[in-house]
C-alpha cells in the first residue's frame, strides 16, 4: 500500500498559544483514518492545516507530505491547485457551503466542467449520474434551501469529490443529522475509501465504528489514544476514550422519569399546519402535553422543529389549527431553552445581575436560586462572571436554572445540547430532565438524535420525514 498523505509533527498555534500539539499520521491507499474527540479538541484545525485553509492568525508548523512533496511550503496559489484534484474536503455545514442561488446539479456539474475539463452538456450528464447515485435524482434541479440536511450533505459530497481527488477529508460530516442520514453519509465515506483514502474528524462514535480503519482519539489538542477501530472501541484503554464512548446516547441508561397518573394538559394542539419559504413544514399535527411530561420532537435540521416551538410559544403565527394552553397562566411560564447558550445571555454583564433583574422583574423568591444552582451542579461563584467567561455546558445549565426559576409549565428545549461536546451533553440532558420533572414542568425536547430522545422521553413525535 502506498502512502498517499504523510503528516509529520503538524501543530497549529495562534500568537504563540498552541492549539494543536504536534501530531503525526499517515494515510495509505484504501485506508480510513478517524479522529475522534470532543468539540474544541483541535480536530478541525488539523483538517484545515492539511488543506492550507487556516484563518489568518493561526499558523501551522511541521510537514504535510503529498506524494513525497511538502505542500506546506507551497505558495497559496499552487496549494489551491491541489484542491479538488488531490485533496477533497467535505464541509461541516453543507447548507452554508452550497450556493443558495444555484440548482443542485449545477453545483456538481461546474466541477466536472472547470476542473475536469468536460463540455457543459457532458458535465451536466455526469453530475446527474452522481446525484442519482446518492439518491438525489429527484432533487437535481432544486435549490439548496429546499433540501433537507441529509440531502445537502450528499450533494456536498458529490460536489467535493467530483474533481477526482483520491484523498477525502471530512470535518464533522454528520453534524445535525439523524441516525439514518448519518449512516448514509458514512456509507458515502466508505465508498470514497475504496477510491483512495478518507480522513474523518468526528465526535460521533457510531460514525467511527462504521468507517472502521484506524482511530486517533484527541483531547485538548493532544493525542490520547490510538488503535484499530474495532479493538479501540471495544476495549478503550484511556479513561477519556471510555467517557466519550459512554456519552453516545446508545450507551446511555434509560433516564425517562416514571410515568405518573393521568396528567392535566398544559398544551393541546389540534390540526396544526405551517409552511415556510413555499415548503410545507408540517400539517395535521396533533399533540397533547400533560404536566411534567417529557416529549421528544425529532427530525432533520431544517424540518421545522424550531418553527414549531415558536408557534407553540406564540412567537410565530401558524397557518392553521388550534393551540390551547392551560387557562389563566402567565405567558412567561411557557418558556424556551435555546440551542446556542452564548446567544441566550447578554454578553459583558455579570450573570448574577441578569439573574437579579429576572428576580426583580417577576418578584420571585430569591431563596430558590441557591438550591436550584446546587441541583444543577453549578458553583454560585459563576454568577460573578460574564457569559463569555464560563463554559458552554455551564452556560446551558445556567440557562436551565434561569428558566426553571420562573416555575414554567412547559419548556421548549430546542436542540439544547447540540453545541456541547458529548460528555457534557449527556450530563446536561440528564440534569434538565430530572430537575424539570421535580418541578412538574413539561419539556418538549427537540433533537435530531432519535436515540437520545428514546432514552429520555415518555414518547417521541417525528416531524417531517419527507426526504
Amino acid at each position, binding site marked *: 500500500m502506498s502512502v498517499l498523505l504523510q503528516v509529520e509533527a503538524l501543530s497549529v498555534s495562534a500568537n504563540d498559544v498552541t492549539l494543536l500539539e504536534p501530531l503525526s499520521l499517515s494515510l495509505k491507499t484504501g485506508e480510513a483514518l478517524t479522529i475522534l474527540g470532543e468539540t474544541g479538541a483541535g480536530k478541525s484545525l488539523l483538517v484545515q492545516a492539511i488543506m492550507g485553509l487556516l484563518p489568518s492568525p493561526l499558523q501551522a508548523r511541521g510537514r504535510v507530505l503529498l506524494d513525497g512533496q511538502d505542500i506546506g511550503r507551497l505558495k497559496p496559489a499552487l496549494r489551491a491547485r491541489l484542491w479538488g484534484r488531490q485533496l477533497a474536503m467535505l464541509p461541516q455545514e453543507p447548507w452554508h457551503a452550497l450556493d443558495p442561488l444555484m440548482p443542485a446539479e449545477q453545483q456538481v456539474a*461546474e466541477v466536472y466542467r472547470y476542473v475536469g475539463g468536460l463540455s457543459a452538456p457532458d458535465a451536466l450528464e455526469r453530475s446527474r449520474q452522481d446525484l442519482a447515485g446518492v439518491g438525489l435524482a429527484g432533487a437535481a434541479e432544486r435549490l439548496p434551501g429546499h433540501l433537507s440536511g441529509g440531502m445537502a450533505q450528499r450533494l456536498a459530497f458529490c460536489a467535493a469529490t467530483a474533481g477526482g481527488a483520491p484523498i477525502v477529508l471530512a470535518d464533522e460530516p454528520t453534524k445535525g443529522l439523524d441516525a439514518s442520514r448519518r449512516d448514509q453519509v458514512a456509507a458515502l465515506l466508505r465508498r470514497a475509501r475504496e477510491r483512495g483514502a478518507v480522513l474523518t474528524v468526528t465526535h460521533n462514535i457510531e460514525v467511527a465504528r462504521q468507517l472502521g480503519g484506524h482511530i486517533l482519539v484527541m483531547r485538548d489538542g493532544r493525542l490520547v489514544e490510538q488503535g484499530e477501530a474495532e479493538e479501540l472501541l471495544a476495549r478503550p484503554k484511556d479513561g477519556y476514550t471510555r467517557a466519550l464512548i459512554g456519552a453516545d446516547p446508545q450507551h446511555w441508561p434509560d433516564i425517562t422519569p416514571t410515568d405518573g397518573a393521568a396528567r392535566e394538559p398544559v398544551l393541546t394542539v389540534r390540526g396544526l399546519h405551517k409552511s415556510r419559504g413555499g415548503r410545507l413544514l408540517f400539517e395535521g399535527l396533533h399533540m397533547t402535553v400533560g404536566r411534567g411530561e417529557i416529549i421528544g420532537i425529532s427530525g432533520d435540521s431544517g424540518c421545522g422543529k424550531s418553527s414549531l416551538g415558536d408557534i407553540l410559544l406564540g412567537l410565530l403565527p401558524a397557518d392553521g389549527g388550534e393551540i390551547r394552553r392551560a387557562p389563566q397562566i402567565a405567558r412567561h411560564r411557557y418558556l424556551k431553552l435555546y440551542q446556542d447558550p452564548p446567544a441566550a445571555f447578554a454578553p459583558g454583564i455579570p450573570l448574577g445581575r441578569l439573574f437579579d433583574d429576572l428576580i426583580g422583574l417577576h418578584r420571585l423568591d430569591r431563596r430558590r436560586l441557591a438550591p436550584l444552582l446546587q441541583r444543577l451542579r453549578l458553583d454560585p461563584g459563576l454568577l460573578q462572571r460574564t457569559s463569555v467567561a464560563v463554559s458552554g455546558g455551564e452556560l446551558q445549565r445556567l440557562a436551565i436554572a434561569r428558566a426553571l426559576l420562573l416555575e414554567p409549565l412547559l419548556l421548549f428545549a430546542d436542540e439544547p445540547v447540540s453545541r456541547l461536546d458529548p460528555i457534557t451533553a449527556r450530563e446536561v440532558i440528564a440534569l434538565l430532565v430530572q430537575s424539570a420533572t421535580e418541578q412538574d414542568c413539561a419539556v418538549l425536547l427537540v433533537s435530531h438524535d432519535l436515540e437520545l430522545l428514546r432514552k429520555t422521553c415518555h414518547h417521541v413525535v417525528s416531524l417531517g420525514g419527507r426526504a
Partner: protein
Amino acid sequence: MMTLVAKRLLQAALMIWSIGTLSYVLMRLLPGDMAFRIAAGRYGYDNVNLAASEAVRAELGLDRPAWQQYLAWLADLVRFDLGDSLVSGLPVAHEVSHLVLHTLQLAVAAFACAVLLALPVGLFAAFRAGGWFDRCSLVASAFLRAQPVFVIGLALVLLFSLHLKLFPVAGFNGSKYLVLPAVSLALVMAAVSSRVIRHSAVGVIRSAFFDFSRVKGLSFAQSFWRHGVRNAALPVVAFLGIQFAGAIEGIVMIESLFSWPGVGHGLAHAVFNRDVPMIQAAAMALGLIFVGLNLLVDIACYLIDPRERTEP
C-alpha cells in the same frame, strides 16, 4: 411576477393622487396672492398691476372656493388631463414630458457613470480588503458623501469650466453640457455605492460557499464569477434602486445649478410662479420615476434570485 407589477401600479395610482393633493394644499398654504404671482410669471414683475392680477383671477377661476378647484382638478385627473400651465397656457403634460426626458437623460448618464466608477473601485477594494486601496477609497467616499451635491458641482465648474475651460459652465446644447452635471451626481452616488459593492463582495468572498467552491477545485475567478457575482448582486441592486431614487433630490439641485432644463429645474420655477398644475405634474413625474425604479429593482431581484420564484 404579475402580482409584483400590479402592486406597483396600485402604488403609482395612490402616489399620483397623494402627491397631487399634497402639492395643491401646500401651494394654498404659501403666503402671497396666487393671482398676483401668476400674473407676475406671465408678464414680469415690472408690468404687473392690480387689473392684470384680477384678470388672471377671473380667467383661471381662482375666486372659486378651494374645494371646488380641487374637485375640478381631480375630475380632470381621472380623464388623464393634467390641465394647462397657468403661466404659459400650454398643456402641462406636454411641457412636463419634455422636462422628464431631459431629467432621465441626465439621471441615466449619471447612473451609468456612477456604476462604471463604483463597480471597479468597489470590487478592487473587496479583492484587497483591508489594503491601502480599500482604506483610501473609504476615506474618499466618506469625504465625497459629506459634501452637498451642489458643492461638488461648483468645484467641478471651477476646475473644468473656468480653469481648464474644457466644458461649458451651464445650459443645454449638446452632449458636452451633460458631462459636468452627470459627473457631479455620479460622484455622490458612486461614493456610497462603491462601499456597498465592496461590502457585499467581501461578504461573499468570505462566505462558506465561496470557500467550498475553491475547495471543489474552482479558481478564484471562476468561483467569483459563478457564485460571487449573483449572490453579491442582490443587496447591491436593491441599494442602487434606493440610491437612484435618492439621487432625484440631488437632481433638483444639480439642474438648478447647471440650468439643466429638467423636471427639477421646472419644478423650482413653477413654485416661484405658483403654477399649481405644473407643480403637480412635475412632482408626479418625479414620483412616477420613483415607482418605476422600484418596479425595475423588484424585477431585477426577481430575475437574479431563483428563490423568489418558488414562493407561493
